[in-house]
């Protein structure tokens, strides 16, 4: 047992000390947080250049209210160091009898000269609901989405106000009468053991999509990190004859178990780091109600099984190959199993209680992904399904680890072309 732990410790240290692991895995939450913080800062701070916009107001009535809205906007955007966005500087254009085409050409030249950012045309019949004419916005830059949305919203508000007024309807009353009622989704209400009603939990985007995605990505990442490391490590050991030296000290089964234990430890470290980060985020956002210790425990059980199952498959494949090139083709079917589990999870996320989701969650290579997703998505599967799927998964894992041990024993000393599937099956039976 000591030797298994020695191998596990060495595998663990070798994997977690690689730059790829430290940067790619441990730093990922930090990088993601930093990225999100930067994006949110950039969104409000990056472009504070004022936008000078010329307005050709064919209606004669829209410019004034829009200019007032611009003043309000500019005040909100702030000034100096505290400025969070561009000011909109509107100027009215008088045609003074000139053809509109000439004026638009002239304004286009001013935009090119950076004298203006853009100009906008409100056609004469814009207020007429029957005509349904469009406004036209002209700019050299295509990154003026905030500005065009702002103009569209405010002009439409003003147009609606005027149309209601012309029709003799009080717009405030209309707004009141047509107020939108929101729909909020909840789980079910229960009565606790003390007889008191336990209020239902709100099901929002975070619990509907955020948590399942977090679970899925973490499961995928821990499986892939461990499996790929094992594949590469065992081929390196085999190619450089390290495995021969190791087999002089430990049995193939001890070597296999030590390596598997090493990657399970790495998966646990990953889970610890990500859960710590995730819980910190949930507590910060005031959503500590979403933290469920029982689900975390179930996740760890499924993750350990997945790491063992896929780790054993990849180790067996690696031990049967003599070089990295052979392993690339031999590992394809195993990679497909992981990818199918990952992609199948999206089917489960869409309809966790559907027949196909239930079926997928009982297929051993899918179980850690599909069943775990069903568990984090309310109302969750019946407990008997969870236990049964775990039993099937554990039995399969034990079988695969045993078979991998048989292949490992022979594969490690074999050189030359990789074995065919019938040969692998023969090694298992030997």
């Amino acid at each position, binding site marked *: 047992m000591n*030797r298994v732990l020695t191998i596990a410790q060495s595998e663990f240290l*070798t994997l977690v000390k690689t730059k790829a692991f430290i940067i790619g895995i441990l730093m990922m939450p930090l990088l993601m947080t930093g990225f999100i913080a930067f994006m949110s800062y950039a969104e409000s701070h990056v472009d504070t250049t004022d936008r000078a916009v010329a307005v050709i107001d064919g209606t004669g009535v829209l410019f004034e209210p829009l200019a007032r809205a611009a003043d309000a906007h500019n005040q909100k955007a702030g000034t100096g160091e505290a400025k969070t966005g561009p000011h909109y500087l509107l100027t009215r254009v008088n045609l003074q009898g000139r053809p509109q085409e000439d004026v638009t050409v002239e304004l286009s030249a001013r935009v090119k000269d950076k004298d203006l950012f853009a100009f906008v045309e409100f056609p004469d019949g814009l207020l007429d609901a029957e005509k349904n004419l469009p406004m036209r916005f002209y700019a050299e830059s295509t990154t003026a989405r905030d500005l065009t949305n702002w103009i569209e919203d405010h002009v439409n508000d003003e147009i609606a106000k005027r149309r209601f007024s012309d029709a003799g309807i009080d717009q405030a009353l209309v707004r009141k009468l047509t107020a939108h009622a929101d729909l909020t989704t909840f789980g079910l209400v229960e009565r606790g053991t003390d007889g008191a009603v336990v209020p239902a939990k709100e099901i929002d985007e975070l619990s509907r999509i955020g948590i399942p995605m977090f679970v899925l990505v973490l499961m995928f990442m821990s499986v892939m990190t461990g499996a790929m490391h094992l594949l590469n490590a065992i081929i390196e050991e085999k190619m*450089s004859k390290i495995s*021969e*030296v190791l087999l002089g000290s430990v049995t193939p089964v001890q070597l296999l178990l030590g390596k598997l234990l090493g990657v399970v430890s790495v998966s646990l470290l990953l889970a610890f780091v990500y859960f710590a980060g995730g819980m910190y985020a949930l507590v910060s956002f005031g959503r500590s109600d979403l933290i469920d210790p029982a689900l975390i425990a179930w996740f760890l059980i499924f993750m350990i099984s997945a790491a063992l199952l896929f780790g054993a498959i990849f180790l067996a494949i690696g031990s049967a190959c003599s070089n990295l090139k052979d392993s690339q083709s031999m590992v394809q079917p195993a990679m497909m199993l992981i990818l199918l589990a990952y992609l199948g999870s999206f089917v489960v996320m869409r309809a966790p209680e559907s027949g196909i989701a239930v079926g997928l969650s009982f297929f051993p290579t899918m179980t850690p992904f599909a069943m775990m997703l069903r568990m984090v998505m309310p109302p969750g599967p019946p407990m008997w399904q969870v236990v049964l799927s775990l039993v099937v998964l554990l039995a399969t894992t034990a079988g695969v680890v045993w078979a991998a041990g048989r292949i490992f024993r022979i594969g490690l*000393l074999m050189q030359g072309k990789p074995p065919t599937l019938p040969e692998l099956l023969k090694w298992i039976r030997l």
Partner: protein
Amino acid sequence: MTQAIEIRSVSKMFGTHQAVDDVSLDVPEGSIYGFIGPNGSGKTTTIRMIMNIILPDRGDITVLGERSRGAARDDVSYLPEERGLYKQMPVRRLLRYYGRLKGRRPRDLDPVITQWLETLGLTAWADKRIDTLSKGMAQKVQFIAAVVSQPKLLILDEPFSGLDPVNAESLRDAVLNLRRHGTTIVFSTHDMSAAERICDRIFMIFKGRKVLDGSLDAIQAEYGHDTIRLRLGQGVGALAGLPEIEAINDHGNHQDVRLKSDPQAFLQKLVQRTTVLQFEIAKPSLHDIFIRIARPTTDDLQATGEGAR
């Protein structure tokens, strides 16, 4: 004398290939036993069976008095020919890892590691990664990895190949020193002169069967009666057309000649042909004996199609 290794009628087949065929061997404790044989003759298979990495189909192997599988594993170390080390591991961590896999405790290992690093001039490299070492240094680290557990039986496969003479000499001293302290050493090599210099006994395997086993003197005596070292007035040309000669190894100023018949009668015939400056019944070198055993026979050549060309 107590035997470190006892091999009794051991055979091993891989598919239809008979890798080892009914081999028996005793390796006395505290000796250096040379394992020689051409590539593919069954040396590595024999070593792997001694190491318990593979099991024989038939026969028994007792290592350090233990017949059961794996029992003697901790006191046996193996240095394979193709060097393999974890490239990204620091030297000391790697040596500690190998020692711990042999069941040694870290606190017992550290002084041994320090001592060996010093002996082989690697102290300054103790915390450097393997991939920063030169080939020779890595080879010495591999050697230390094999001896760090202070094994009673050490199996070395070509330990000196690729080393410069200075490093080869320091490793050779280390091997001899280990033997002085009671370690039994199995030395597998193609370097016949190295085997001659340091081995007490030689075992040769050819096509899976034992063909030589004994002390160097005994082996040379067995093969020595028909080898003559000659120096002739007319050089090698004087030997042309003599039916008594089986093979000539021409060294320029002298020739080693293997005879089919009685050397005395041959000498009489030779003095009639040329001036004989030197005529010595010589011991054949291990190299000569190896070649004599392993050189393909006419039958072999015909079987592989070589003879037809």
